[in-house]
């Protein structure tokens, strides 16, 4: 029975469910993605993930010290922010940039608002947005996985900057829109590689299978409400399908959009952040549809190949409105 309770608006039933236990679940859910990152990007993952986690935790500790507030590291939210940020970074990003991103994510994205629960935007995405705006070049240079490039450094980091770069699947699809080559871009081999993760991309977003396993774990544990990932994926699928039906030469198949880029990472781990997503199921649907639609709009019409980050940030901004719009009516109460 204890498993049946999720983070939701009133009525509440008491349960020993704390922020900490939710965060532990999320971390466990992210383990497959981290493992895939470690498998495909080797030394990069080994450096970036701990760097981000450590600097995020250190920033939170420091902010609490300055604000003379009790230590809030125990809720592990900083760890989750660090992991998600690391997984959404390009593998070859220099360490100092990752540190700036994590500090920014926790300090500006969360602590200035008053700590966990008071932040408007998803901290990890705030950090990533700042990095994208500041170091655009670095944030769009991708590295091929170690399984393709045998020369990729496995232990020594000194020749880090020399690794070959490769375009991401979404960059291909962007190119396809311009050159009307959608059918060529999409092939079974490529679909497979977006599924297993053997493509260029951010650390944790390449492997669809690992993300699905992690997402499934969260769903089984009832840590996240299934409505949200469902809404995101469904609306993205529908919009991609509309584009595909209109012009199948230019636009790639809808499934390709779901498995490539940060779509799955977003659906299961980023959009579901309990602080910045709406509380009610109805609200989650609106939020999820918005995220999926904006992402697809940016991917199909916009200039950037990937739009998940901006979609999440934009929808975060309207979350309070959605919550007000979807107020639950108490039993016996009347809608005003």
């Amino acid at each position, binding site marked *: 029975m204890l498993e049946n309770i999720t983070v939701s608006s009133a009525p509440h039933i008491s349960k020993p469910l704390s922020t900490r236990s939710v965060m532990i679940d999320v971390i466990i859910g992210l383990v497959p993605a981290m493992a895939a990152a470690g498998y495909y990007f080797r030394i990069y993952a080994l450096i970036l993930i701990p760097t981000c986690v450590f600097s995020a935790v250190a920033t939170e500790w420091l902010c609490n010290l300055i604000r003379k507030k009790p230590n809030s590291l125990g809720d592990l939210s900083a760890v989750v922010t660090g992991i998600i940020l690391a997984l959404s970074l390009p593998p070859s990003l*220099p360490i100092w940039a990752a540190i700036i991103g994590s500090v920014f994510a926790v300090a500006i994205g969360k602590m200035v608002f008053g700590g966990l629960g008071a932040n408007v935007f998803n901290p990890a995405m705030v950090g990533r947005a700042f990095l994208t705006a500041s170091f655009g070049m670095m944030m769009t240079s991708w590295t091929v996985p170690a399984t393709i490039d045998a020369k990729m450094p496995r232990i020594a980091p000194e020749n880090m900057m020399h690794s070959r770069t490769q375009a991401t699947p979404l960059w291909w699809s962007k190119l396809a829109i311009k050159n009307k080559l959608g059918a060529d871009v999409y092939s079974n081999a490529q679909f497979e590689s977006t599924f297993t993760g053997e493509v260029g991309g951010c650390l944790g977003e390449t492997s669809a299978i690992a993300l699905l396993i992690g997402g499934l774990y969260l769903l089984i544990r009832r840590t996240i409400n299934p409505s949200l990932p469902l809404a995101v994926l469904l609306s993205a699928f529908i919009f991609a399908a509309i584009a595909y039906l209109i012009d199948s030469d230019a636009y790639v198949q809808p499934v390709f959009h779901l498995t490539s880029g940060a779509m799955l990472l977003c659906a299961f781990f980023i959009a579901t952040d309990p602080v910045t997503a709406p509380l009610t199921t109805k609200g989650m649907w609106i939020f999820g549809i918005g995220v999926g639609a904006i992402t697809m709009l940016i991917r199909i019409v916009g200039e950037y190949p990937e739009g998940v980050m901006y979609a999440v940030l934009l929808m975060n901004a309207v979350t309070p409105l959605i919550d007000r719009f979807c107020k639950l009516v108490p039993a016996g109460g009347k809608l005003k």
Partner: protein
Amino acid sequence: MANDTKVAAGLYKQTLLAGLWRENPVFRLLLGMCPTLAVTAAVKPALTMGLSVIFVLLCSNIVVSLMRNLLKPHLRILMFTLTIATFVTIADLFLKAFTPVMSETLGPYVPLIIVNCIIICRAEACASKNNLIVSIIDALGMGVGFTLTLCVLAGIRELLSTGEIFEVPVMPDAFVPWVAMSMPVGAFITLGLLLGLVNIISKKKRKT
């Protein structure tokens, strides 16, 4: 008589210092946010903007203070705006004639000084009620306070977004510029953090 001058000197000193810290237009009164956010990507335009504001503020305070006894209450805002617009136009022409590059960088923000609240605020709150000397000192204090704040903000942003201060490189070669700091994002974040810092300092001051 001697006592009077002493009191007056104290008043002048207070008026001058008010603009610099206690009533700093940007940090305490939160006035003039438009130029504060828009022209502080680098120190040079920020300084030019600050000097233009000092000029306009000084002229408008002098004029308003001189005619303060002739002002009709219901026409005073009209009078202030007219005065300010005149001097802003002159400042704009001056910049265009003598520093064309700077004038281009600042673009519409020079004409926009007309609607800068600091100037109309000082005309209303100080110059229309005080004598010429107090008005001049007030204009200088507020203007210098505004300029200094702009320069601090611009210094931080220019340092991080280009690695230079006043177009002189100061950062080591390995430094990668944070482009976001030269965008509006950088302006808002830097201003927010500085406001917080100023609040912390003034809170501490009040306690002691």
